[in-house]
């Protein structure tokens, strides 16, 4: 059974009397433990698709299932709780909370879930350590480099042990060396812990590390490659 499934997903943005069709009927399914890249040029609809798959936004048509749950049938609050429990998100712009240390950021989702402090800090520290950030756990985002901040964002997603991690161009703001290192770390976690990953990228150097590539153009899936 797929862990994630999108069927006939369309997304139309309306603003100032203009309609923009960002997705034109996308069908996609991910099995548990997959490590998949979503590729395509800017404006192809990658971010929009990830937003819909994570329940941050709702499709104009079609349906998205995550772990067998149809997201459009959930209320806004239910979708928020679903993300909290099931989905790890990594954003292109890191999106760390500036008032929290790396450890607190990594533990934040667990804090929202109401886990006791020792438990959440243990799990957050494990995630940070797995991404090579044990020594920087007490630093605030402003005291970290871009690559380190992105790794903290990944640690936040992983510490929560979600069903799947959706990452929107996680390496876009990193140099190629740091970007590759991050992808390698994510791949290790995928292989060792079986976490399902779907991330968007337009960086061809990262694609040799993935087992499946989904190509998106003009809001449609135009090709797929499995390795």
């Amino acid at each position: 059974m797929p862990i994630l499934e999108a069927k006939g997903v369309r997304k139309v943005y309306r603003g100032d009397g203009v309609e923009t069709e960002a997705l034109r009927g996308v069908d996609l399914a991910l099995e548990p433990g997959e490590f998949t890249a979503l590729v395509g040029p800017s404006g192809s609809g990658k971010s929009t698709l990830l937003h819909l798959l994570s329940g941050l936004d709702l499709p104009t048509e079609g349906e998205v299932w995550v772990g067998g749950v149809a997201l459009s049938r959930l209320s806004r609050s239910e979708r928020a709780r679903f993300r909290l429990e099931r989905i790890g998100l990594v954003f292109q712009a890191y999106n760390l909370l500036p008032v929290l240390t790396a450890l607190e950021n990594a533990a934040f989702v667990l804090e929202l879930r109401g886990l006791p402090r020792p438990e959440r800090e243990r799990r957050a520290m494990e995630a940070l350590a797995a991404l090579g950030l044990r020594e920087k756990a007490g630093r605030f985002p402003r005291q970290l480099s871009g690559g380190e901040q992105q790794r903290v964002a990944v640690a936040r997603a992983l510490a929560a042990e979600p069903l799947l991690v959706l990452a929107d161009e996680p390496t876009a703001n990193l140099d190629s060396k740091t970007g590759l290192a991050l992808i390698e770390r994510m791949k290790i976690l995928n292989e060792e812990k079986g976490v399902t990953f779907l991330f968007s990228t337009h960086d061809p150097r990262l694609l040799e590390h993935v087992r499946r590539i989904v190509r998106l153009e003009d809001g449609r899936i135009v090709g797929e490659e499995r390795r």
Partner: protein
Amino acid sequence: MLRLAWRNLWRTPGRSLTTGGVVALVVFLSLVFLSVYAGAFDAFFRLLLERTGHLVVRVEGYEEKEDLESLAFAPPALPLPSGARVEGVVEGGCLVLAGERSRYAVVTGLEPAGLARQKNLLKAGRLPEAPGEALLGEALAQALRVGLGDEVVAYAPGGLGLGVYAFRVVGLLDLPETHLEARTLVVPLADAQALLAPGRVTRLEVRLEGLGLYDLKPLEELKAALKPHLQGLVAETWLEANPIYAAILPLYDTVMALYVGVFFLLGGLILLNALYLSLVERVREFGLLAALGLTGRRVMALVFWESLLLVGVFALVGLGAGLLVHLELADGFRLPLPQWILEQYREFGLPEVLYGRLSLKEILLTLGYAVGTGLLAALWPGWLASRLEPVEAMRYVP
């Protein structure tokens, strides 16, 4: 949420201090303003009360009577509560003569306690200590061309008394109203009675101990208790005895309430603006929280807790500072205004030295207002953040 809100505030000291500083300043200024306002209000009426006593006893229908024989009466024995003091006063018209000059004046005979209260108005000389000594309004003294140590004669023929009495000027009075100062002759009660009406007074002033300035209920009760003992006389509270001031009391209250209202409105708008801006710039952050799994209700709760903590803590800081300044004001202060404005104040009967007053009600009103405004300011950004889809909130540009 409370812990999260506190951490957000604690770890952004710049933002918290800037916004909280506005809260503290508004609370501080409101308390100082209210203290000064109440001080000015009290001063005005305390002066009035000091002039008339708590209760005034006069001849029934005195408003329509003009001649001294109709207005003067022998003081009856009154059953008064312990600690109460009764002072007799005689007032009547006379001609004051000094050499070849003369002026019409009102001679007022006071008991020693009444004379002692004139000390604040004394411009030169001293208070009368013996029979035949008098205080003269400074303007009257100038008109008569007399000074300290000079002799004047009060001439009031056709009455019950001697009709003529010589006084030595021992003090000059500076009254707020110049036209009154030009007609003021204050003498010991016995001298005035000898001149105008032996053994009689034109009013009795009853002064009570331990009564609040605006505590009118015990006065009404005492007035009712005295009524059977006042044959042909009438007792009035100090406000009834000053109908003109009593009539302007509601107006004075309304005008000052308007000042307070405008002040609170301005303070509230500044507070609202500061809190609103500090929250609306964080809608993107709230969007991130929603994306990570915080429900709209929890986002709103976070915003409210933050506002409540921020306003609460800094309102207490403002309260502390305001109370410290109020304690100074309560010991007496002079309005920091130019002399010519102070003169105008005096014309309205306000003393230069005021005493600040704050009641618990005003403190709670100010704190409640600050907290209410703070929560109101949190309402829109909190609601906005809770209603937006996380994607929209994260793209939000204020």
